[in-house]
């Protein structure tokens, strides 16, 4: 790998300065520019869903990642030994289709010789994880699947889905012990199914009753209604929505229409600032979601959040356009940038992705990593890339405001293990 050079082709990425030219990983271009500082370039792949079933959250995520690339490139990314690194990123919209992801992965690898990829979906990230390990490409995905925790080259700045969901179950049981919970999720999507075994394990432990109901990720109003109608058979107190915001908000609307009075808690990707508007129904006090971080709007001036807003401003975005999704994209790139700043240029040049991986894993024993105040201290240990374990439950209250409850750290069940064993 890396020995041959693919044909240099002008890549049509929007901003010409950001385009990746085909070049072996970590080309040191030596002294450049008037400042006389040393620079090198690396290529990174950006795999996003702008057109598929998860594009409802994917578009903003991609926006966040892109503005992070621009922001950090502009600000300057320096290795430990002070060499400035320019990141060229190649963006591909794969429409949430794992086969396409693999096709683009190969393009990233063979044509652009990327050393890292900022990715998206659960199915594709999971199925590629062994190959990325072989190819030694760091893969920072928007999928926080528990199955990625033990994989050597996969990283994300959050607890895995299972641990997050366990926090939600803990919260439910605190609100109403012995409650009935309907699990709304797409039975054929890896992302939706991911935390289910952990939820069931946790519910059993806490004495909650759970029932499965199929809610398509590509839901429309009719199918959401059908799912809620089915859920109503079980008289639930709570519902878990394991899909993305489009599907979950439809379910909430259907529940409001059909008069189902359960509180619905959604996965991270299923709940954010736009939820009430998307649901377009009276959902006050009836919906909420999990989030490992405080949402940007509620911590505008805190370190970390500030950078996000700064980057957004630089890219010409309005302040209220910065939402949780944008921040998530921003964070993933930031984690990558953090990793670069933890290696020296020589190792980066020689070992590429492996150097980044080792840098991130050095947090296990040494200095923990923090993305401003967004995350608590994060430690990635070899074989267990689970940086922290606490999550908030964000509730859309009767007053029409979002309230952050927690953070909750699930206890008594190893949620990652439950998922790894459960499927």
């Amino acid at each position, binding site marked *: *790998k890396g020995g041959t050079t693919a044909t240099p082709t002008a890549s049509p990425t929007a901003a010409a300065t950001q385009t990746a030219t085909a070049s072996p990983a970590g080309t040191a271009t030596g002294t450049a520019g008037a400042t006389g500082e040393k620079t090198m370039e690396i290529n990174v792949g950006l795999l996003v869903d702008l*057109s598929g079933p998860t594009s409802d959250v994917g578009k903003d995520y991609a926006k966040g990642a892109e503005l992070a690339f621009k922001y950090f490139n502009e600000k300057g990314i320096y290795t430990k030994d002070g060499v400035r690194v320019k990141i060229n990123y190649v963006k591909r*919209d794969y429409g949430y289709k*794992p086969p*396409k992801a693999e096709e683009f992965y*190969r393009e990233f690898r063979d044509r652009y010789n990327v050393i890292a990829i900022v990715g998206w979906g*659960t*199915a594709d990230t999971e199925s590629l994880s062994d190959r990325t390990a072989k190819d030694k490409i760091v893969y920072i995905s928007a999928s926080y699947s528990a199955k990625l925790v033990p994989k050597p080259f996969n990283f994300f700045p959050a607890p895995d889905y299972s641990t997050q969901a366990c926090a939600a179950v803990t919260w439910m049981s605190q609100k109403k012990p012995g409650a009935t919970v309907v699990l709304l999720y797409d039975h054929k999507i890896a992302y939706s199914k991911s935390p289910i075994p952990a939820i069931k394990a946790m519910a059993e432990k806490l004495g909650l009753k759970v029932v499965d109901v199929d809610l398509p990720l590509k839901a429309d109003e009719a199918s959401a209604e059908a799912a809620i109608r089915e859920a109503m058979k079980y008289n639930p107190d709570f519902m878990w929505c394991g899909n993305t915001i489009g599907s979950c908000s439809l379910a909430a609307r259907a529940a409001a229409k059909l008069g189902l009075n359960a509180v619905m808690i959604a996965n991270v990707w299923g709940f954010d600032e736009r939820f009430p508007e998307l649901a377009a129904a009276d959902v006050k006090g009836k919906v909420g979601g999990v989030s490992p971080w405080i949402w940007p709007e509620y911590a505008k001036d805190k370190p970390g959040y500030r950078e996000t807003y700064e980057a957004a401003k630089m890219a010409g975005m309005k302040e209220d356009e910065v939402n949780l999704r944008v921040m998530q994209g921003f964070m993933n790139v930031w984690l990558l940038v953090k990793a670069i700043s933890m290696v020296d240029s020589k190792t980066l040049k020689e070992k590429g992705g492996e150097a980044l991986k080792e840098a991130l894993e050095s947090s296990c024993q040494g200095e923990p990593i923090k993305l401003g105040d967004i995350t608590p201290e994060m430690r990635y240990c070899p074989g267990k890339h689970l940086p922290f374990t606490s999550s908030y439950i964000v509730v859309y209250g009767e007053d029409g405001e979002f309230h952050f409850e927690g953070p909750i750290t699930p206890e008594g069940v190893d949620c990652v293990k439950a998922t790894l064993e459960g499927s």
Partner: protein
Amino acid sequence: MPAGVFKETYLQQMAHLRYPIHVYSAIAALALLAALPFMAGPFIANKLAFYMVYLVAAIGLNITTGLAGQISLAHAALMGAGAYTAAWLTLHGINILAAIPAGALMAAAVGTLLSLPSFRLKGYYLAMASIAAQEILFYTYQRWVASDQYMPVNDDAKVLLGLELGEGKLLYYTTLALTLIAVWTAANIGRSSIGRAMKAVRDNDISAEIVGINVTRTKALAFAIGSFYAGLAGGLLALHLTAIDYDNFTLEQSIDFLAMVLVGGAGRIIWGSLLGLAAIMASQSMLEMVFEGNPMYKYLVLGAAIAYFVVKEPEGLIAVLRRVKEYFRLWPYSY
């Protein structure tokens, strides 16, 4: 007795490579294909190998639909049958080289089942039956076969004598070898009496029956063979990919296959499929590279191209190619 003399020449007339120029071009093409990974780098080689997988599948559909006239919009689903079977076998420790043919046979079996509607239906009705079959199989894959969205392929099963067939140049050569076999056998079937029987069924099933062709069996065979190639392609897909996902086998993919056959040249098993593949898949990749994967452009450009070619070039790109050839043969005269 003209028959005696003719006997000598008939096989020559049936040969794939009839003139010296054919032989030379074939040798040159083979040499080029063999040297390609060294000349073009891994990206191009991989991409080409990936196209070959789809070429095999397109050839399959060109047999079912082009040669035998049985419209199928379930081809992708059949490819799935092969892919899942192969992937499943590798997970149970079977080597991929054994799993691929097994997948092909499985697909052939499923395809034979899918031929049932064709015994009664033709044209639009058959097309709709195949859409239904495609969706039902798709449902099966989604919910039952690989409910985790993907079925991983065991990398350890892709090793033969310590050589990793699923990676790098070897992936290319393995695919190339299997593709060449597929191409050759398909071309042979096309020129055999079985191929003629299929064409007969396509052109006029009533008189085919009266002429003594078992139409039902021929249709079933056409589906079986077409599906066999689809399954073979599915198996190759398992060789290429780390996991088999149902999104490989959507109705849209089936539509793309049908478009390949029709845009390339229906009934022209090899060249038609090849041209169709080049037109549909290659341009799709181009568009994806240029527009960062946004499918909107694929729909706009490919859709227009399909409609245009079907309307303006009934025989497909192969007719265009023939005209170009003719033009150069007669050059510089216009007729």
